[in-house]
């Protein structure tokens, strides 16, 4: 799925476009070290964590897009950092569970 398709599946908004890459795998979690250790490379990451370290983790773990759930609006430092690093950033009003279901239905791998 492209970033725009992910946003559409989640009634969300792309806050930062990122690189035009295909994302088929996803990971959900808020503890940064768990995400670091477990998120598959090139994945989309569903979280409610909203600080600049989220972008840092995405850069180092090779995560392509951050999906910020529950209507949380990214702090400026996070969106700026995503823009600099070419990481996609989507906001969605859905919670993490509903967003996961939406992505699965749209063709994301479980």
């Amino acid at each position, binding site marked *: 799925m492209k970033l725009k398709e992910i946003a559409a599946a989640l009634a969300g908004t792309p806050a930062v476009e990122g690189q035009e890459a295909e994302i088929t795998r996803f990971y959900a979690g*808020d503890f940064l070290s768990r995400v*670091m250790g477990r998120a598959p490379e090139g994945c989309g990451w569903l979280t409610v964590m909203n600080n600049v370290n989220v972008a840092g983790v995405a850069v180092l773990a090779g995560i392509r897009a951050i999906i910020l759930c529950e209507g949380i609006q990214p702090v400026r430092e996070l969106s700026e950092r995503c823009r600099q690093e070419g990481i996609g950033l989507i906001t969605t009003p859905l919670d993490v569970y509903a967003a996961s279901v939406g992505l699965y239905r749209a063709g994301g791998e479980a």
Partner: protein
Amino acid sequence: MIHLRYEVDGSDFVSCGKASEDVKRTLKNIGIPSEIIRKIAIAMYEGEVNMVIHANGGLAEVEILPDRITIVLTDTGKGIPDIPKAMEEGFSTATEAIRELGFGAGMGLPNMKNYSDDLKVESRVGEGTKVTMSFIL
């Protein structure tokens, strides 16, 4: 041989990870395979975060040789009283304020062990900790 050296600022959660990101960029520039870079970036970031959370910063040194990369993280923090306990997944002594930032999952040292080819942790309570990680190229 390439030798990189970073002072890790213990008071700055915002720029936490800068050394690891610089190492990642350097390794990419010299053509290290991306799957090895990812392992190194993850393990080093965990070490960097640990130094910020628990030791008010420290020193990160990276030695790049043709066949291996070694990362040495040294701090003068409070030390680790029980290293086997600290190696357990989920064990953390981070404060609630730090956990609210998403740190303190108790996965730092386990990730460093899982992603490096060799991990050595030396620590003295009240004096500090030295972590040495090696990665075979």
